[in-house]
């Protein structure tokens, strides 16, 4: 019995690897085994690999195996061994990252880890020891200085330009000047809303992202409630 399961499974495996239409014969074999005489539909049902959530092309972006994995080129370069003289015992040896004045050069640590991860994405390495590097050992101010500040500068710049444009337009429309704007309640509310908007929607792409997130957040709930459509839950009616 176990042999037949293995055979069935290998048939499935064969289907995955080849994806050829000779799949039909293995499907027929399985159908006979289950004595499924009842099904007489002539329309070919989508196979298990086509049904249920398989994404293709653009929709699979970010959820895909990556080009290297799909083309089978993942291990074309053989197994790479990660080696860097500063990588000792599964983590970066901070002693080798010292600046002339004795402090640790955190930027160099970040650079090294960036290169490390990029190399792994292209070709996963095989290690003989566990990795131990935790990104939280790099202090928070290094991250802020290197990654947050340039982004913050860009967004502040955009917010300033938008603010200037609106202040000019409101003044030109006969409304209050900049100082009077801050003194009226309506003006204060408008400024607050604008700042909040700029923080949440920092780029136009963020609007789409927020939309997608909102859909995603409720999709699972919808799937769970599908069986209750049109019917009331007993606990609701009590």
């Amino acid at each position, binding site marked *: 019995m*176990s042999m037949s*399961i*293995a055979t069935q*499974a*290998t048939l*499935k*495996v064969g289907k*995955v*690897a080849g*994806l050829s239409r000779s799949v039909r014969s293995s499907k027929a074999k399985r159908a006979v085994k289950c*004595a*499924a*005489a*009842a099904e007489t539909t002539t329309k070919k049902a989508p196979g*298990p690999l086509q*049904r*249920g*959530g*398989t*994404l293709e092309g653009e929709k*699979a972006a*970010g*959820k*895909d*195996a*990556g080009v290297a*994995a*799909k083309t*089978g080129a*993942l291990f074309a370069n053989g*197994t790479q061994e990660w080696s860097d003289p500063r990588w000792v015992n599964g983590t970066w040896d901070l002693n080798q990252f010292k600046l002339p004045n004795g402090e640790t050069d955190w930027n160099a640590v*970040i650079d090294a*880890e*960036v290169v490390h*991860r*990029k190399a*792994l994405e292209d070709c*996963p*390495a*095989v*290690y*003989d020891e*566990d*990795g131990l590097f*935790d*990104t*939280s050992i790099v202090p928070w101010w290094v*991250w802020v200085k*290197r*990654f947050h500040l340039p982004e913050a500068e860009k967004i502040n710049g955009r917010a300033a330009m938008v603010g200037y444009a609106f202040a000019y337009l409101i003044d030109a429309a006969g409304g209050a000047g900049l100082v009077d704007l801050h003194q009226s309640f309506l003006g204060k509310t408008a400024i607050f809303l604008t700042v909040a908007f700029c923080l949440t929607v920092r780029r136009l792409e963020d609007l789409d992202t927020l939309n997608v997130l909102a859909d995603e957040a409720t999709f*699972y*709930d919808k*799937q*769970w409630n*599908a*069986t209750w459509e049109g*019917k009331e*839950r*007993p*606990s609701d009616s009590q």
Partner: protein
Amino acid sequence: MASASMTMAAAPAARTTSLRNSKFHGAKVAPMRAVKAAAVDTGIKAAGKSLDGRKLRVAVIGGGPAGACAAETLAKGGCETFLIERKMDNCKPCGGAIPLCMVGEFDLPEEIIDRKVTKMKMISPSNRAVDVGQTLNDKEYIGMCRREVMDDFLRKRAKSLGTNLVNGLFMKLDDPGQGNGPITIHYNDYEADAKVGEPKTMEVDVVIGADGANSRVAKNIDAGEYDYAIAFQERIKIPDEKMDYYKDLAEMYVGDDVSPDFYGWVFPKYDHVAVGTGTVVNKTAIKQYQAAMRKRAEEKCAGGKIIRVEAHPIPEHPRPRRVQGRVTLVGDAAGYVTKCSGEGIYFAAKSGRMAAEAVVERSQNGTKEVDESDLRVYLDKWDRKYWATYKVLDILQKVFYRSNPAREAFVEMCADEYVQKMTFDSYLYKTVVPGNPLDDAKLLGNTIASIVRANALRAAGKAQVNM
């Protein structure tokens, strides 16, 4: 009540004429009905009519954990139960991990647990390895068992409690509708001839579909489709000294190379390991993912021999319709598998038990008919009890299985003891335990920080390449 006392008082005087007798008879019946109506309002509604003398007949299709636990509860509750299973020695391809609460709740003997896993290793895309499990106490473990052993035990127990075990393959069911007669089940009986089944029919009042991810009952009642993952695993017999490493350790590998939306695993079985992976969105590439998984675990499984290759679908969410008339679904057939971890055995068994409990209660121990509203009581109870668990795991999957930086952050977070404790508590005991709010706030801050850092590292890499 007033009319009853009047009747009793007037009874001696009413003996003379038959007309008056009949009037009193009518009057006597009315207060009885009034009493009965009062009982229905306060207690359990027996929506159906009484079955004259016979027991409620329930067919459970599928003899896995869901079916066997349903049959057991039904038989104990006084229903005439038929458990239809196609293959009594079936080894369903499965991870085989059961939480601690299942051993207690379902009275499983220690013998069916092959191995008690007390340590887990999570390995990130950049090979950062985190040991999880230091917060477990001596009595806590994840049980690894053989599905054929556990399923057989549960079925035999159901049989010993009065279930009629039928070795047959379910073909289809005919439901003429509530009040129009019983449901007819068509099946092929393998009792006499194991090769070619003998077509037979059986008449029942309720059907519980527990026949797994490719449920035929679900197709019959038009329950709708669901997204599912393909889980693929190879069982590998590795040398003893390498097996020793996995004595009580299970590994979980995350990464784009191993799976775009799931994880790869190395689970120790009784004398070999199961190495596998799964995916929802890119099933056609499953072999590449498996190759990547084998590569990652290469050192640890070197010198091993593949003894079996197997694959099986895992549902991602419940079917659109889990009940139709007098037929309901439980377990994998209903789609009760959690996201993120892909756990299904406990929920299958529990849903089977809950459905059976609802049937037993609403039929008043098998003496009354049940209809769809009674089966919906089980669905509602299930949704209310486990919705939080499923939703939390869904959120975790959406946040942490998005991309490689998210997975790196996931593994980083698992190094935190508070996270380990919360995770294991909720997995082993199936309750979403609210922790200390301050710790939760700190955890949220750390999670965001981890994700931000991991994303920054990846973005930095891209920027450098562009320039």
